[in-house]
């Protein structure tokens, strides 16, 4: 079993975040660890969650 990639999404539009989350989920290769609409929270989360990928708007 291949280890899933992990991702974090930063976007100020909730709809865009959901859309991306859905698409990533469908690939079955990526687990989305979290998302945020502001930078400070994003940085704090990324430091803690250590995702492989960060999607930025």
């Amino acid at each position, binding site marked *: 079993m291949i280890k899933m990639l992990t991702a974090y999404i930063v976007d100020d539009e909730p709809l865009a975040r959901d859309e991306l989350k859905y698409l990533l989920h469908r690939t079955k290769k990526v687990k989305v660890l979290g998302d945020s609409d502001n930078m400070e929270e994003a940085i704090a989360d990324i430091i803690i969650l250590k995702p*492989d990928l960060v999607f930025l708007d």
Partner: protein
Amino acid sequence: MIELDEESGLDLAKQLENVDPTPAIIFATAYDEYALQAFEANTFDYILKPFDEKRIEKMLDKFMNLQKIVKEEMPPANELTTDYNGRFPIIVDERIVLLSQDEIIYLETSDGKVKIKTINHEYKVDETLVSLEKKLHSKKFLRVHRSFIVNMEYIAEIQPWFNSTYNLVMKDQSKVPVSRTYVKDAKPVAFGAMLVECIVAVMALVAAVSLEPADYFAINSSPEKYAELGMEPVHLAHLEDEVNMDLEGRKGGAVTLAVGMTYIFKAVPIFENLAAYFYQFVILFEAVFILTAIDAGTRTARYLIQDFFGNFIKPLKRMDSIWANITASAIACFAWGYLLFSGDISSVWALFGVSNQLMASIGLIIGATVILKIADKRWYMLTCLIPLIYLYVTVNVAGFWMIKNVYLNSANAGYNVINGVLSVIMLVLGIVIMVSAITKWAQLWKIPQPELVKRSKSEVA
């Protein structure tokens, strides 16, 4: 939009380069004009909205291939950053200093350098806060602000500041701000403390109702008044024997709680001979509880003294001066002492009761306001309002009765003008808070609930 808040996604991408492990950055945006800049900022990929599933798959495959190559080529590096017995190396003036994590009070970034404040030293190092943060493996360290990391063991006090932010006072008296984003990490601690308080309150209620009413009144009224009630104590004589204490006419909640808890505990088979032990244990437990209240009260008094008298005597206002702190603390302690000296423990006890009930009222007022702001239905507010009405009415009636019949009645043994004046001040402040709360509720009430809930989401830290 590439503009997130005031800062751009590009800024975030640059900041993420300092994070370890550095994540791969993928811009997912509706605009293509930033692509060039984005790639300069070490971006892995750039995908355009609307999203295309195949494009995302392709990007993921590319990433996984790259990851495989990187893993094969680079064996795990033997890092200098691993902690040996909780110590970690920092470079100060071209020397390597091994710093013990336990000695660090806090870390602060300023002018591109990080200041590390320890018990005995201050170091300036050429590293980012982010890279230092990952070296601090201990769970004791908490990022409380964009430019501050604190060692939680050195937090002495948490002071509320403007706009629902907080200041931490460290044990060396230095102050550290907590930004709103990071307040959320401190919240579980506060909620936990509140839950413990609630458990104690429920325990006290359980203890009170588990007693026979006749026993309850025997403990909580003076022997003369009790005789008028015409009640017969049920288990009280037996309990008195078991705990080896006089229990009749011991007003105030302490004895009731202790007797109630003893009554419950001794029903457990293995504890049946330990009644005296449990009674004293609960009394001790309450003493600790009250001491924390007095401790918190003294600290608050100290701040008020420093803040108010600091307007006239400038050096007193300096919160970081140990002499100002000691002087203000001494004044606060003297004031406590004077209250005790001018009356006795039972007169202070009654004042303490009034202030405690008023504090509970304030808690319920805040609770009601929060519920109004965040709950889906307005009538949920009643969970706070109903106890508030009961509490507020009883404390005001009792407070007024004490002022009129005891403190300011020269014929009464408890005649004490200071206590009377203090009670009046407390009740008046209580009324001011109540009135301003009601005005606030009236304002909030006019705003439609969904709008209120939406607003509070951005407001509540």
